[in-house]
């Protein structure tokens, strides 16, 4: 059974890290793989990230969607290998020539892509979304936006479940998902989405009554009882983050 692309409870180092500091590392990691012009460093990053998956108790093979991203990365890399002609020719197949520069570019592009995907997955799978939203709001994000995020997180599984019910209800009335023409596709799409839309509108009404009934939006600010406490581990991670950002900045300025 593949895991959904959502928070997976755990107690690993990454799970325990403060969401904002983890977000900082996500940002730095993304900048890093684009700023470093060495494909072998990028590939080392991929290996490191896979090791981080292992340490966090998240087997990459069981994460939903990862196969699609890997295939896309291979495709992107493959195109570079085939069409970039630079340096020594390693292989000649008729009109196609695989060059050392092409292989390097392929590894670089695929590595960057996979790194960003793995980083994002690690962040999403190890960060409790509620903690993230509340931390962002405490850090200054207007609370209306923070609760928009929380509401979206809450409603996604609800609509997923309702979509399954509508699909089952259609099968129970003999609907066959046989897309023979664009017109048939549109009919099927309308018949599927209309009940979901009506249900969503009803839910929005109920939610609006519930929020206004509890004074949401009455004042420009609000208090927060929930807090995500920073630990010595977060201090260490923050220190390392600052050092890494500084090193990367100096390195870029020095032209390394």
């Amino acid at each position, binding site marked *: *059974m593949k895991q959904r692309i959502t928070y997976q409870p755990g107690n690993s180092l990454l799970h325990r890290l403060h969401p904002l500091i983890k977000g900082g590392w996500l940002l730095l990691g993304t900048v890093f793989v684009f700023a470093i012009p060495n494909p072998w460093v990028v590939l080392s990053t991929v290996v490191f990230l896979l090791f981080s998956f292992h340490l966090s108790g998240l087997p990459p093979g069981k994460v939903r969607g990862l196969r699609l991203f890997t295939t896309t990365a291979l495709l992107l890399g493959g195109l570079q290998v085939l069409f970039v002609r630079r340096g020594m020719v390693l292989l000649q197949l008729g009109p196609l020539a695989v060059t050392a520069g092409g292989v390097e570019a392929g590894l670089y592009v695929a590595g960057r892509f996979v790194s960003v995907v793995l980083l994002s997955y690690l962040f999403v799978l190890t960060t409790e*979304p*509620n903690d993230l939203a*509340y931390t962002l709001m405490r850090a200054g994000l207007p609370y209306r936006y923070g*609760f928009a995020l*929380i*509401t979206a*997180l*809450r409603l996604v*599984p*609800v609509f997923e479940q*309702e979509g399954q*019910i*509508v699909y*089952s*209800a*259609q*099968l*129970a*009335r*003999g*609907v*066959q998902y046989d897309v023979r023409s664009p017109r048939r596709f549109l009919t099927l799409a309308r*018949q599927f989405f*209309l*009940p979901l839309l*009506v*249900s969503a509108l*009803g*839910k929005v*009404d*109920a*939610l*609006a*009554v*519930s*929020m*206004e*009934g*509890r*004074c*949401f*939006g*009455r*004042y420009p*600010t*609000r*208090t*927060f*009882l*929930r807090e995500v406490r920073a630990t010595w581990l977060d201090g260490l991670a923050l220190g390392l983050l600052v050092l890494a950002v500084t090193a990367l900045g100096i390195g870029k300025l020095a032209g390394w």
Partner: protein
Amino acid sequence: MIVIEGLSFRFQASERYALRDVNLWIAPGEFVVVTGPSGCGKSTLALAIGGYLFRQYGGQASGKVTVAGMDARQCPIYDVAEVVGLVQQNPEAQFCTLTVQDEITFGLENRCLPHDEIRERVGWALSIVGAAHLLRRPLATLSGGEKQKVAIAAMMAAKPQVLIFDEPTSNLDPTATAEIFEVIARIRAEAGITVIVIEHKVDYLLPFEPRMVAMEGGRIIYTGPFSKAHRPRLPDRRPSRLLPTETEPIVRVENLNLGYNGHPVLRDLSLDVHPGEFVALMGDNGSGKTTFLQSLLGLLKPYQGRVQVLGQDTRHIPVSRLARDVGFVFQNPDHQLFAESVWQEAVFACRNFGSLDERTRSQVQELLVHCGLGERKEDHPYRLSYGEKRRLNLVSVLAHGPQLVLLDEVLIGQDAANAAFLLELLHRRTEQGGAVIMVNHAPEVTWRYANRLIFFNGGRIAVDAPTEEAFQRLKAMGREVYLPSAGTES
């Protein structure tokens, strides 16, 4: 506390008045139960008392609504919300956060209360609903009854003077229903606030001696003591308790084991259902009733054992083909309306099965007329009232003449008259040689219509017997809330 004078309201784009010249006075600390048929204006009245009706819903209003001296039509919604709390029908739809603690603190944080006061109020609100142990739980892990308790606590935390419950038990099994009504009684006793409960299951509330307000067609038709009110009852159908066993079964279930994500839900189920049987499936929420129903249509496949419907093994036949012989009505009417007119909806399945001939057309026409939808054929299904949608759901499933009809809690939110109508239609199907299997939380309905009761407990069949005998066995098991004397209307 609440004074309503000459209140009328019509929703935008509607020709019909949802409320007509409503006059109502409610004293501080009073306990009022509002009842009436589906679509009679009960929930609209609740929205009017909370002031939401005049802000969030477009429409024409006249008359006065005064709550604790405030004009609910003019006052900012937040001022009225300090006095009136509204617990809506579906707790899922009103949750704004992901955990119990966040949900209870939500309204208090919005009011910018200091942390110490928030903590004190959270503790008080959860203890009054008997849910202090739920504080650290994610909302998604709670049962239906627990969710409703949290929804109530979230409103109670604001310490309102009036608390309105809009059908708070409609999605709950009898055990959870009894618990919620106990919570409401406790709130009245301990907090001394005005309580208004909109409810079909009025018999549960008799011991609390509330004032009854009965509505019909947007008007209040009765207000006074419970004892003098006319309470609509289902007709005393009492079908034959003799189970037909001589015929070939429509359903044969053998050693059925089924689950989700490796977690078993149904264990070792074996049973036959014969033509002419009206089977009620009862049991606590989460006991496996709906899963069992879905397995009969092949929506869920067994990982051990087998399910046969009219000799067809559900593992080897597509659902869309099995659906010719099995009609399935789901819980929410809006989830199963796909066409653009009532007529198109009624013949939707027949078209898919390629069986829409002249004879079928005339049968569907007859069914629509019988269900009071004959004049609404060209209307969009979403323009129908809740009760009418339910009838259309049933027509559209019965139209192609399935031998087996499966129903998942279709009586939720239905008044006695609508429920009786639907049940009569189903009863007719059993007389014509079909079988009906219905998930149902109302013992009264089971008593009056079913000739067999199957009671689920933890994914297993705890009782499977003719209705009378089954109720006796439930009594012996200490499941009094499932007996007809514990009583629900519909």
